[in-house]
């Protein structure tokens, strides 16, 4: 294993705390646009995205630049990937250009883990299939900590397509390490019973009202239409039973935080009123994404 970041599951709580603390230093101060350093000058980060992504890719690019590093982004459609080159061959080609880190998103679970066994260049996982999205969990934790100061004992409801969500898995692994009470909620085909055992402190709930009762944080997930090969339920039915609407929020904690990793589907998993409400942290999450990714990249580039 090289010094990349493949997932949250294998990180210890002190390692996570270190990244989150460092990210705070990269958050914009009042009256300031953003933080910038030159500590990573002369380093090169390759962003290799095998799946469509706007916010994560842009966020990593900005983070690398604000550290003073050079960055280039490659997307699958515009590269030799579309000419049938294998993943290993593509990565070996990139490694020969001597980047100091490769940020990678891939539709296959474990693709970065598989590559990390064959490459020496550190890999930062920007989302692998239905497995992990570690920087999303880190930025979500940073966002909660900015408002609440601690994760321990908080009730956090994660609602939606849990089975296919890498965001859910990374968040569960992280929040569990910090002693949060996690409630996973979704339609039965998208919430396997075994998820209750993937980490300590996880409970399952199939009724959204019970899931968000007294919740301190509600994390909504996007319905992953592109990953569905299960017989599910009609879209209207989904929104009726699992879409988050204003009326739900009254039973949650009075200062509940509503989060969403984006992109949001208004009227599908979340109503516009909730997405645009004071409770919504969606734009704070985006902003923290840059600070957290700066901390992650710095950790990789300046070991």
């Amino acid at each position, binding site marked *: 294993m090289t010094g990349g970041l493949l997932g949250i*599951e294998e990180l210890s709580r002190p390692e996570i705390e270190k990244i989150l603390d460092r990210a705070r230093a990269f958050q914009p101060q009042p009256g300031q646009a953003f933080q910038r350093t030159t500590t990573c000058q002369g380093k090169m980060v390759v962003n290799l995205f095998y799946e469509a992504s706007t916010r994560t890719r842009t966020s990593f690019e900005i983070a690398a630049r604000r550290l003073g590093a050079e960055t280039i982004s490659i997307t699958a459609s515009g590269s030799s990937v579309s000419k049938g080159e294998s*993943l*290993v061959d593509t990565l070996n080609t990139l490694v020969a250009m001597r980047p100091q880190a490769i940020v990678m998103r*891939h539709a*296959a679970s*474990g693709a970065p883990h598989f590559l990390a066994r064959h490459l020496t260049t550190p890999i930062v996982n920007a989302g692998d299939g*239905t497995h992990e999205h570690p920087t999303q969990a880190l930025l979500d934790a940073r966002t909660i900590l900015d408002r609440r100061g601690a994760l321990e004992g908080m009730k956090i409801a994660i609602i939606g397509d849990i089975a296919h969500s890498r965001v859910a898995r990374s968040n569960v692994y992280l929040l569990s390490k910090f002693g949060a009470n996690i409630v996973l909620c979704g339609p039965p085909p998208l919430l396997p019973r075994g998820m209750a055992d*993937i980490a300590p402190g996880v409970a399952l709930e199939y009724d959204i009202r019970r899931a968000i009762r007294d919740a301190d944080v509600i994390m909504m997930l996007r319905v992953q239409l592109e990953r569905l090969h299960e017989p599910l339920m009609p879209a209207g039915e989904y929104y009726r039973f699992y879409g988050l609407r204003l009326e739900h929020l009254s039973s949650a904690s009075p200062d509940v935080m509503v989060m969403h990793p984006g992109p949001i589907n208004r009227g599908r998993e979340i109503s516009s009123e909730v997405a645009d409400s004071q409770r919504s942290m969606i734009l704070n999450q985006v902003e923290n994404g840059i600070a957290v990714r700066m901390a992650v990249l710095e950790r990789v580039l300046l070991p």
Partner: protein
Amino acid sequence: MRLVIRNGRVIDPASGRNEAADVVIEDGKIAAVGAGLDAPGAEIFDAGGLVVAPGFIDIHVHLREPGFEHAETIETGARAAAAGGFTTICCMPNTSPVNDSAHVTSYIVETARRLADVSVFPIGAISKRSEGEELAAIPSMAAAGAVAISDDGRPVMNSRVMRRAMEVARALDIPVIDHCEDLNLSAGGDMHECLDSLRLGVHGIPSAAEDVMVARDILLAELTGARYHVAHISTARAVAMVKFAKSKGLPVTSEVTPHHFALHTGHMRPYDSNYKMKPPIRESADVKAILEGLRSGAIDCIATDHAPHAGDDKMQEFERCPFGITGLETAVGLTFDLLVHTGLISLERMVALYTSEPARVIGWKGELERGCLKPGTAGDVTVLDPAREWSYDVTKSLSKSANSPFNGRKFRGGPVATIVGGRVVWRA
């Protein structure tokens, strides 16, 4: 031509023999077994301190020819078989073209006759192109040398087609071998459905995908009277159902692969395609049930499901890699280590699991009779050293492929010589 194997301990489960004796092979056939046999002019094989057994049989291998010769050929697969102690192998029909006609069956038989170091018996397809709709030319394939039928990796989902295939097989007195997998339940799955699959974000294959098919097939075997054989059994529930069927007197048998008794999900290296196969590595409770089945007889024999894949095909994202691992060269070593040296089964039972038992499953008769040391049968012998210490180096494999999770593993006990028709085709 005459060969005498002297000073060994002869274990022949078919005759119940387990004693110091010599074996004389003459003109490719077993001539005599007994103490202090006279064999003037014979070539001598000194088996002092070794076990002399009937030639080992593997009724489930993939030789990839015709069609996928970059991964294996009949010649290289047979060589790997010899290096694993096997003298007879049965090859599955998922070649290209599929072995669904007498032409392909004959091609395999003829190629093996010319190039293979061991005896090769084809298994014909159940349905045309193994598509599960129309029956293949089963009687013609049987006449050309097919010893069983199976659609192996593409199991027949249509129960009516399976019923008809069983009726045809019964009339021909050949077994129907099923790779038990409900393709709708397993769709998209890359590993056993369990906590680890959820953790790793890998789509799971539930045990029920195997169990519902075993249940269906047992009912159809009862309906048709066909001999029915469960390939690579992997779940505790399936073992229980086979045991139940046997207790009802149904002609139901089963095999297990070495990797299904050697590994459970806790042994898997995440996203390593050398641990990706169908059925998938199951849980420790399943392994426990399998071990008990091997001991009690619910499981009749060990078969490798040797499934070579070229390195490039296995060096990919886990979900894109094909299913299957090689197994011919590590089977006997794993059996010694995990079944015999642990005291689970006797050496005699181990030999039976590779000889008389698979021979009974297939039902070779007349001049094809094998799996025993009866005079007049094939002069096939496997010589074993239960104490031999060795390790597996996949780069030295005689298979064309190297997709094994057992690379580097140390073993105690293994084959030391493979004799086919009185000719030593492999020595350690």
